[in-house]
């Protein structure tokens, strides 16, 4: 999947393109639901959404279609484009205008399985875009949301143009600085949003960015976790990609779950029981006493929490390789698409 923006010289309109092959269409739909859909909640957002175009690539690759669009050849792909206005708002309006019952006459027709998948994917993308319009009507917080959508789309566009490894590292560094200044609520939001955007929806990268941001702070580990994840609890909408990370103990559970998924901890082992108990005790302490929960834990629970932090570090190292490879691949793809 690729995301680009392009300004047209004659009208000055800026279009926001999502380019995807059919296999990735599920991700496109989720992307829109989880990110854009969450922000497209105002009249201004509607105008952005009207310029949101999704290309489902057919015989060409995502890279080739991206090149077509960047070089003004998008019309060649016009048959595979989903225009928001055509497939959601206007199609609904048309439905309201003309309404009559038609007797059902069904027949059976052979179709390739791959084509069925494509049709379902196609429908999902339309569904995702269509939901944006549902959201447009769902809220009245226009001023706040206008600001958010402008920031979001603008960031997304500039990020796509300038994104490379260094850029991502810089963003993470900025996040560290921001995390040290806990005065402003907006800064908290920026941290979370920047991390999300740098990770570009990739769960592994999100994990890595969080580990990275927390790991390098000059606070003790738990204070750092408090800063970053309290931020998320307060400011990031629950249905963004961080679903489930709502408080510190949830973060600890998140680490444990991932450690199990990566076969670092066996779910039937005594180690798992110790870690889970420590998390439960952490939750109880947090609810029943003031101050940092960690400091009020027993020595054995502290050891378990330390063990969890060690697992987080190990996962960070493992993910680091993936992170680097992914970013390098994206830089190469971008340079290649620019003919560099």
């Amino acid at each position: 999947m690729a995301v680009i923006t392009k300004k047209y010289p004659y009208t000055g309109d800026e279009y926001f393109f999502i380019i995807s092959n059919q296999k990735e269409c599920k991700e496109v739909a989720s992307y829109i639901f989880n990110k854009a859909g969450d922000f497209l909640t105002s009249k201004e957002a509607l105008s952005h959404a009207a310029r949101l175009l999704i290309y489902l690539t057919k015989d060409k690759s995502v890279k080739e279609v991206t090149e077509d669009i960047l070089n003004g050849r998008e019309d060649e792909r016009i048959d595979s484009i989903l225009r928001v206005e055509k497939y959601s708002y206007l199609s609904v309006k048309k439905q309201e205008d003309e309404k009559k019952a038609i007797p059902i006459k069904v027949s059976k027709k052979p179709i390739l399985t791959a084509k069925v998948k494509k049709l379902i994917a196609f429908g999902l993308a339309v569904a995702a875009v269509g939901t944006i319009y549902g959201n447009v009507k769902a809220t009245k917080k226009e001023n706040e949301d206008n600001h958010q959508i402008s920031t979001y789309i603008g960031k997304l566009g500039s990020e796509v143009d300038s994104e490379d490894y260094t850029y991502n590292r810089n963003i993470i560094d900025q996040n560290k600085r921001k995390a040290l200044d806990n005065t402003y609520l907006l800064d908290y939001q920026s941290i979370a949003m920047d991390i999300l955007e740098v990770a570009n929806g990739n769960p592994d990268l999100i994990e890595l960015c969080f580990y990275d941001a927390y790991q390098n702070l000059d606070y003790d580990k738990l204070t750092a976790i408090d800063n970053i994840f309290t931020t998320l609890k307060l400011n990031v909408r629950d249905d963004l990609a961080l679903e489930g990370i709502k408080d510190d103990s949830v973060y600890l559970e998140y680490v444990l779950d991932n450690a199990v998924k990566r076969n670092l901890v066996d779910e039937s082992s005594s180690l798992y029981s110790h870690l889970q108990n420590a998390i439960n005790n952490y939750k109880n302490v947090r609810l029943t006493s003031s101050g940092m929960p960690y400091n009020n834990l027993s020595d054995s629970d502290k050891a378990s929490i330390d063990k969890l932090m060690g697992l987080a570090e190990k996962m960070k190292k493992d993910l680091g390789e993936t992170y680097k490879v992914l970013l390098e691949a994206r830089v190469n793809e971008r340079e290649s698409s620019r003919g560099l």
Partner: protein
Amino acid sequence: MELYTIKLEDGKEYYIIDTVVNDNNKYLILANDETDDFTIRKVVNVDNKECTTKLDSKEEFTNILKMYHEKNKDGLK
């Protein structure tokens, strides 16, 4: 494989790619692979005959879209 198709008022034949049931109403999720058209129709009973009709409102349309997405979001592996 084979899929059921249905001809709509525009004269085009659409594959029935899925069905969604909400509030005792059945909805057909339809797509045309040649023109990349996508639409939803509600199944209604008129004079004891099953018919399709367009939806009543934008809210209904959006709601069914969401249900369709929920149903299929994990299905495309």
